[in-house]
């Protein structure tokens, strides 16, 4: 049942009024993003917590059925050079790519927001120190540093997440510092300080809630860029390792068969592009929501 007929059946004046709104004026953008986000989330949850047979299916080799094109019976997206099912590998890959990127975002966020808050409430020299640290980190190409770090620590899921996280925190710090300073000078924060409320409580209950909307936007964008970096490093062979169906390493494997089975590139390529675009769209929507909130709060 379409939303329009559902609303008509409900028959209430208010709902009917909403339904009369021309379809073109519906917040289609938001609807599509929410639907896409929910579907992707279900897919991720399925690959992480779902069916245990998934791994087995993804790693089952059959050299007699290698490099099958998409649409072959039993293999919706075809098979790779070792006869493994591409769809199953992509699903399992969700677990690696998304989780490494999420972990890296969490590490970058913790470092970045933590340092930012320290600079907001700390004395001037702490602020200066954090500022220099941000400049210094931004001055180096983070991807190259991450490669060096993986080279030193050795390959692995966690290593990759840490290597990316410790070099991608500056944008979190910059936003926390700029926005947090804006909240920190507000009178209710001065009042709390005057009442003897501890610094930790001021941060947790006054400053963080004030900047949380903006931080969620930054988190979405950072996740998107860290996902690209995760896949990129895996593509270069610095990911979880051989045989693991991480999207970046799947791309690298597909490259070897490019002339014989070019469709192998499409699956992981689309998966990466889709997730990155989705994360960016969610970030855009969050930003629009934050701006709207601020406007209504000002008026």
């Amino acid at each position, binding site marked *: 049942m379409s939303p329009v007929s559902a609303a008509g059946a409900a028959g209430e004046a208010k709902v009917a009024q909403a339904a009369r709104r021309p379809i073109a004026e519906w917040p289609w953008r938001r609807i599509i993003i929410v639907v896409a986000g929910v579907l992707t989330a279900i897919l991720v949850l399925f690959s992480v917590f779902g069916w245990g047979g998934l791994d087995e299916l993804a790693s089952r080799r059959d050299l007699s059925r290698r490099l099958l094109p998409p649409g072959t019976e039993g293999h919706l997206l075809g098979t790779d050079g070792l006869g493994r099912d591409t769809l199953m590998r992509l699903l399992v890959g969700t677990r690696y790519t998304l989780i490494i990127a999420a972990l890296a975002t969490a590490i970058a966020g913790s470092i970045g927001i933590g340092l930012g808050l320290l600079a907001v409430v700390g004395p001037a020299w702490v602020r200066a120190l954090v500022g220099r640290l941000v400049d210094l980190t931004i001055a180096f190409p983070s991807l190259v540093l991450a490669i060096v770090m993986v080279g030193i620590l050795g390959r692995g899921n966690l290593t990759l997440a840490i290597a990316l996280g410790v070099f991608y925190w500056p944008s979190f710090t910059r936003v926390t510092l700029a926005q947090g300073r804006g909240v920190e000078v*507000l*009178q*209710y924060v*001065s*009042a*709390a*300080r*005057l*009442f*003897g*409320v*501890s610094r930790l*409580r001021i941060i947790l*209950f*006054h400053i963080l*809630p*004030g900047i949380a909307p903006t931080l969620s936007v930054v988190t979405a964008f950072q996740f998107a860029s860290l996902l690209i970096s995760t896949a990129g490093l895996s593509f270069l062979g610095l990911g979880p390792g051989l045989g693991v169906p991480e999207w970046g390493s799947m791309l690298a494997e597909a490259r070897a068969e490019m002339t014989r089975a070019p469709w192998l590139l499409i699956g992981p390529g689309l998966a990466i592009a889709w997730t990155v675009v989705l994360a960016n769209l969610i970030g855009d929507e969050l930003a629009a929501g934050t701006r709207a909130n601020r406007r209504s*709060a000002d008026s």
Partner: protein
Amino acid sequence: MSATGEATLPPHPRPKTATTPLLEVAGLHVTFPVGGRRLQAVRDVSLTINEGAVFAIVGESGCGKSSLVRAICGMYQPSAGSVRFRGIDVHAPGEHWRQIRRGVQLLFQEPLPSLNPRHTIRRIFWEPMQANRLASDMREVEADMRAQLASVGLGAEALDRYPRDFSGGQLQRIALARILLLKPQLICADEPVSALDVSVQAQVVHLLERLRVEQALTYLIISHDLPLVSRIADRVAVMYLGEVVETGPADVVSREPQHPYTAALRSATPVARMDELQRKRIILKGEPPSPIDPPSGCAFHTRCPIARARCRTEKPALQPPPGGGHRVACHFPGEMGNA
């Protein structure tokens, strides 16, 4: 007269002020660094506030009255001098810090920005109580919160609302209730009614008066409204460019100002009585000088209608005039007083 004039308020019964000094400010200086130079917001201010009194500080914008009060409340660190509350230095770090701070509370000029818009009134009330360890659980003080809300004329249902649900006058009463829950002895109020609608001002002034009697409070009130001050305050200090230029009993100072600046302030307020219309208006020339680079001699000489050569070089001391009376920092006290 302002909105808080005779017509709307019964005359204030002057309380018998006890002689114990509750607050002693001695030689207080507050300076702020401004681009390598020093802005002298408060210069050598001394005052004594007795228990149960209403002390007012009057002056135009930028004269340092807010800086003075914020230093008294412990918000700013003074660069010299001391603030003693019940004989204990407010700015000395130590054991009694929290207790002293609790005794002196600041009421902000505008209530709305001083209340977190994301918190309910209950949470707004609870935060300072928790920080001062008045109770370990919010439920213990629920009755206190309700009683304090009632004392400022609001119902208990306000506890679950947010600041945006209230009007300016209601918010100022909520801000006041939040402070009163800490059982302070001294309340510093920074222009407590000037941000409110004229019709609400009298209401809040009334409330302040009633609470002072009921809860044995002492007030330090900042204002630029001399008529209001003469009604509600016992003593007044007039500030100009960070210094006290005249101080004494509020009614005497506003009736017979000795300093030309006080006289100008008085003449600037609108009058309600026909006989006062005859009074000459004193219009001050120019802007107040910069507190970064205060003038030599008497700081007021650049704008003073009766300034003479001596005023440019010699700084007048804050002392009673030769004929007796309250203290004033002027070489020619009273010359303009009854203009």
